[in-house]
């Protein structure tokens, strides 16, 4: 499969990349790892005249610890997330999730910025970023702004990102030390998108859940932050009654497509099972 012709650009700075986007408008797309965009170009479902490759821009990769937040460069690959010692110590759910994305070759190329920016409801990082209450740092012609992951996704492939903006980093509020976490993903095979998946984070204090966050992958048009399910856990001892309530509320939020991964009601129930398993594992891990 051969994509249509395009002109290739390799800007050296974000300003230069934003300038190219402004100049070419709808006819241009940026590419990071390319493992979402290039298959679409090969199928000619994505047709563009200008491809703006971000690989040569310095400063878009790596993780920095700013104390109350972790800032992850948008071009940091899934493989780099898995190997990062700061994330391993402060926010291990990111590596746990990255390990469940695609396969080794794709993880060498795929980036966190591309994963969150694309707006594909099958991508795993968006729901995780909603659970972590992360913000995306977007740079455009008018400067830089932060967009909360929880309000970024409008519909499948439609996001708050302006057409001349580029995500340069993801800012994750550092979860409390001793937090419990789990990303549970059911998939048909390695490399597949989730049939359903759930991210759960929580902290326990004297047997009571002091803070929690639950979000769901690929059971709706967008990633889903399960606010009511989260509220059902906070203040409880995470006993069976509280977990049952959280699972029911999370299931109620879903609106999955019926596709080759299964009928809609099956995927709704599976999302509930992912939430239940993730809560159990997060609880085991919480200090």
């Amino acid at each position, binding site marked *: 499969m051969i994509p249509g012709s*395009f002109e290739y650009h390799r800007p050296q700075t974000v300003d230069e990349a934003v300038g190219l986007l402004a100049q070419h408008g709808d006819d241009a797309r940026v590419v990071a790892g390319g*493992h979402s965009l290039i*298959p679409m170009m090969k199928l000619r479902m994505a047709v563009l005249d200008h491809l703006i*490759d971000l690989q040569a821009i310095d400063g878009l990769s790596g993780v920095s610890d700013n104390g109350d937040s972790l800032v992850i460069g948008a071009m940091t690959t899934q493989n780099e997330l898995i190997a990062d010692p700061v994330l391993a110590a402060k926010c291990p759910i990111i590596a746990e999730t990255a390990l469940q994305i695609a*396969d*080794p*070759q*794709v993880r060498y190329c795929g980036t966190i910025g591309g994963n969150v920016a694309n707006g594909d409801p099958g991508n795993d990082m968006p729901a995780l970023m909603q659970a972590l209450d992360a913000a995306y740092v977007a740079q455009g012609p008018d400067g830089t702004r932060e967009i909360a992951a929880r309000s970024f996704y409008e519909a499948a492939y439609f996001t708050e990102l302006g057409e001349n903006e580029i995500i340069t980093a993801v800012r994750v509020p550092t979860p409390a030390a001793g937090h419990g976490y789990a990303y549970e993903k059911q998939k048909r095979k390695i490399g597949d998108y989730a049939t359903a998946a759930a991210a759960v984070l929580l902290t326990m204090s004297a047997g009571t859940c002091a803070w929690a966050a639950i979000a769901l992958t690929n059971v709706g048009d967008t990633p889903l932050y399960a606010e009511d399910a989260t509220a059902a856990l906070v203040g409880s001892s995470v006993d069976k009654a509280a977990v049952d309530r959280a699972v029911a509320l999370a299931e109620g939020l879903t609106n999955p497509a019926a596709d080759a991964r299964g009928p809609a009601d099956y995927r709704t129930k599976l999302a509930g099972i992912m939430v239940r398993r993730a809560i159990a594992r997060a609880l085991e891990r919480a200090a």
Partner: protein
Amino acid sequence: MGKHHVKMTVNGSAVEALAEPRMLLIHFLREQLNLTGPHIGCDTSHCGACTVDLDGKSVKSCTLFVAQADGAEIRTIEGMAGPGGSLHVLQEMFREHHGLQCGFCTPGMITRAYRLLQENPDPSEEEIRFGISGNLCRCTGYQNIVKAIRAAADQINAAKEAAE
């Protein structure tokens, strides 16, 4: 939309060429450089038959434009054997342990296994299986591929120890 001037190092040799940016790396390697070891299997970044080593990463060359690889250092299966054609230990072990039947996936498997062993010289069976999960084989059932990679790891490690 002119051609793009690309320079890269492929199997240790400097390569310069003019190529349309939309040309995929796999087509560039096979059709312009006559390196037909990397295969086109699924053409949809699932099967791993087109895997090459690019700047120390295993990548599927069907999902990368040649323009993106401008400046890269690339190794294909053709670059695995030593000077004079002596087989790489991974190639030897694939032969020894029947790690291939039809051979279609083998260039990608060996190129991927090479990078896996660079990063993890002593992998468990589970780590090998996870490490080659981006490479599909429809003949062997993977059993002998895993054995061959494990045997290659043993040989490389024994040679390293002997040298120390």
